[in-house]
């Protein structure tokens, strides 16, 4: 059967109209910003990708609820992954094996380092000491700019590990002369059992526990953790739910709740905020964030503003201008935060600690070196004001 001229013209007009309408619609939507940055990058449960049986590094999870039919809900973090047998949680390292939720990374960290405590960053906690730092594979977030993506976005079986159970961690930390053990790099909330047991044991040996986390954790496990943790740096990635979802794959409200719990439980707390151009560099958002911090945690919680550099998938954004970081610090202090710091901008006076009462220089930081230290017994050497934090005696 042939096509005559009429059919051809009709067909061509229909095709052209469809392309014009479809393409025009998409273009219009894109120009209005309806299509960009609207995606929610929250991860998903990995169906059937968990191991069949618990291995050497598996430990039963401390917080989960058994459901019918051997299903279970992992309740460590607000994702509350519902796992059928064989499923792996969003974090990639918690699996349901025959109705029991296991952590798969107990005693097998993939990254072990001795870091200055300032690198965490913790500026008001035993300065100039070192933290024995450990991390395992897995994270409950999907941050586009993750600098540790090769461990955080991988399953435990995809990375090379060390065999290091809590006793060995404590022994090695002591041997290295560390003052503390930091649970860091990836997301310690996801290796909760390993962190909890290690921190409990370390405390008995005089080693402090540092939680370096995104704060995306449920209240019950966090309250348990507060009993064994001495300090925390929580990365408050944004002050906007939409940005949290599109940049990190998480949510803001649970993180704020975690901050309140850590503060009220007496854990030394510092907050980090990475300033990413176009995502988290809005001044209005900053002011709202400062207002919340002041209202809920008070003015004494140190706040770190870090400069963004292109990393991982977010590689087409320019670094944050230094001036923006300095401006953020200035605004935060103007809003009432006593200790705001700049980070990732090399040597800067914004990284020093100045007494919030007399304005004198108390701690000068040149990178990880501390040439000036004027805090005595936790107080300003000049005016005697108590400086929040944990200081060497």
């Amino acid at each position, binding site marked *: 059967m042939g096509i005559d001229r009429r059919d051809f013209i009709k067909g061509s007009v229909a095709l052209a109209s469809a*392309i014009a309408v479809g393409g025009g619609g*998409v273009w219009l939507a894109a120009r209005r910003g309806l*299509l960009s*940055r609207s995606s929610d990058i929250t991860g998903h449960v990995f169906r059937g990708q968990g191991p069949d049986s618990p291995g050497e590094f598996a430990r039963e999870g401390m917080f989960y609820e058994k459901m019918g039919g051997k299903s279970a809900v992992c309740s460590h973090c607000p994702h509350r992954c519902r796992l059928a047998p064989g499923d792996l949680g969003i974090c990639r390292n918690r699996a349901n094996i025959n109705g029991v939720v296991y952590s798969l990374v107990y005693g097998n960290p993939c990254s072990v380092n001795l870091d200055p405590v*300032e690198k965490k960053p913790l500026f008001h906690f035993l300065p100039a000491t070192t933290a024995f730092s450990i991390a395992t594979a897995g994270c409950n977030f999907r941050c586009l700019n993750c600098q540790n993506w090769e461990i955080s976005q991988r399953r435990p079986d995809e990375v090379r590990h060390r065999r290091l159970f809590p006793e060995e961690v404590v022994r090695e930390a002591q041997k290295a002369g560390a003052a503390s053990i930091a649970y860091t790099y990836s997301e310690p909330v996801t290796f909760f059992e390993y962190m909890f047991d290690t921190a409990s044991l370390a405390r008995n040996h005089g080693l402090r526990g540092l939680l370096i986390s995104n704060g995306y954790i449920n209240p019950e496990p966090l309250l348990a953790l507060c009993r064994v943790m001495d300090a925390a740096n929580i990365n408050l990635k944004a002050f906007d739910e939409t940005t949290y979802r599109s940049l990190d794959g998480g949510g803001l409200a649970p993180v704020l709740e975690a901050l309140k719990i850590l503060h009220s439980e007496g854990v030394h707390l510092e907050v980090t905020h990475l300033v990413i151009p176009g995502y988290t560099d809005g001044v209005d958002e900053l002011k709202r964030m400062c207002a919340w911090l002041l209202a809920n945690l008070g003015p004494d919680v140190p706040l770190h503003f870090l400069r963004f550099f292109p990393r991982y998938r977010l590689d*087409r954004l*320019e670094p944050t201008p230094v001036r923006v970081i300095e401006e953020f610090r200035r605004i935060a202090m103007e809003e009432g935060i006593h200790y705001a710091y700049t980070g990732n901008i090399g040597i800067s006076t914004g990284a020093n600690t100045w007494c919030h009462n007399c304005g004198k220089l108390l701690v000068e930081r040149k990178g990880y070196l501390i040439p000036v230290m004027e805090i005595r017994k936790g107080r300003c050497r000049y005016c005697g004001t108590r400086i929040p934090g944990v200081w060497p005696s």
Partner: protein
Amino acid sequence: MRRLFFAAGFSAALVQMVAVREILARAGGNEYVISVIFLVWLAGSGAGALAGGLLARRLQEPRLAFSFFLCALAVFPQFMFAAITVFFPVAAVAGVTPGFYATAAVILIAAGPYCLMAGILYPLALAVSSADEGDGAAGIYLADTGGGVAGFLLFVFLLVKNAGSAAVLVVAAVVLAAAAWPWRPRRRALMAAALATACVSVAVMFGALATAAHRAGVVERHDSGYGRVEVVEREGQTTVLLNGRPAYASRTPALAEMLVHVPASQTRNPARFLFIGAAAGMVREAEKYHPARIDYVEVDADLARILLERGLLARSASLRVTNRDPRRFVRHQAEQGGVYDVIVVAAPEPETFQENRVFTVEFFSMIRRILAPDGVFAFAAEGYENYLGPAARARFACLRATMKAVFPQVAMVPGVRTVFIGREGETRTFAIPAVLAARGIETEYLAPFFRGEVTAERLRYLEEEVGRDEAAANRDLFPVLPGLVFAGWFARSAATPVLFAVICAAFFLFVVLRLDAAEYVLMGAGFVAMAAETVAIFSFAVLHGYVYEQVGLVAGLALAGLFCGIAAGRRTAAARAGDAAALLFASDAAVVMLLAAWGWGMGRLGGGTAVCFLLVMTFAVSMLCGFQFAPAAAFSSARGRGTAGVFGADLAGGGAGVVVCGLLVAPRFGIPAALFAAALVKAAGLFTFAATRR
């Protein structure tokens, strides 16, 4: 009709170059992306030719369809440009480089319809002209290729630096429209509609252009022969972006400090520096040693000018800027007896074979010849923060093996990047801050942060992890490093090239199973022609440097060979009408022998002889492939097959040649192996043809 196809080929070449430039500026420039563009182009045109064959057979009045697709071909590039501009931001969230599959999808959506329409035109043109099929097809192909050569050369030598994408597309549209004027629709209403569409398309393109230029703070933009350079000024910070990625920014001294002071601290008297490429602030750091000379070699003159004008590299009395291919510069220095105390390669890790040539054993050997006895060579690699993932581990191992092949002592120093240093004598990593302090050199990053970045644990970890597996060194003709960089790129977007390979294999299997013997020969010819062009460009880049015009010359030469071959094939096929099969068989055998000779000669010849040999081989292989078109079309026509299959087979074969040789074989098994693969395909064609004939 031939004039029209000359214009169509010319226009298509310009459109293709603009598409490559615009896509690379948004998706990053690596061989995978380039190959996907060529694959979509060739396979899309092939599929279009097959569809056009079906359409031509079913249409009662093909002239109307022909004029419709001609008009569409003239106006669609503007929509393609708009689609590239609009869909890339949709394909990935702000600031993210789209992954491989998102990129491929955008390329398919944006360029696919244009390629299909271009392919549809061939059989429709034959139906309209009612010429003798075999010769008509070859004539059209000849004119099309000739136009392609002209368009390609015009773009490479004139338009690339002097015209924006919109202007190039207007040239392409005007040339095609002028040639298509005699074929315009006769009805006024249709003509008015065509003109209205053309106006809308131009408006769409300029609208898209406005969107593209929207990036906040862009104060300068250049399309140099090496990619797109943009300058962004924001809050007192200057950032230079290369193909959309930040490459240099003010107040980012960390990398510059590492690249300068890590090697300089190893040598007693760092007085002569050579920088191949640069990081922002490197000259300022080198100036702290009061050197006698700093040579900065940057092949892209526009980029070097911008870095100096914008203060990202300090102007200094001891600084000498050379815009020349680094290998030629180093060779020249070696011949002149030039000696340096510190040599730094500050180029990004290679995403293309062209960039790979400053990370090979051969280049490092050249470097060693101009290094002072106490001198140090250094470069930096990305990928180690607190853990070395499999992709980074493989890259680091390859880089260290490449260094070890040349330098007795090799060390890695972690930091914002991991700096690899190589030298004759001992390396002293932990002494760096002390040496800097003793020389009175202050740094903002290196010394103050050293304690947290360079620890015994981290060094031990790096050594253990990198040394755990045996790694192959990266060599000119066996470029393993780009493949490892691609692996990292796939890992970042949690993708795998396997799906792509399966889709390609299924598509080509489908095409192959439907081919007649002559069409198979032509598919092989298309495969070999594109494989030869790809190999020629890779080899030329290795031998001669990444000089855009000269790479363009190689591609132009390949097309010219194809053009001459088609012309010769037409004449021969016309003179020996009954011997099409014999001609195909003989030319097939000649192609196999030529490829074998090429593979043998590669690596055995050096200097100017190697370049001449390469050019001759490129031309000869392309010519033989082009030669096969007319006899194959005649043979196919004699067996009652339409010419659409001939076009389709040739183009689909070209797509397969790009993917198999450019992406699968060359990065994994070396450039000579790509020639071997092409010869194998041709030999298989020879056997198939012989079997069919029997």
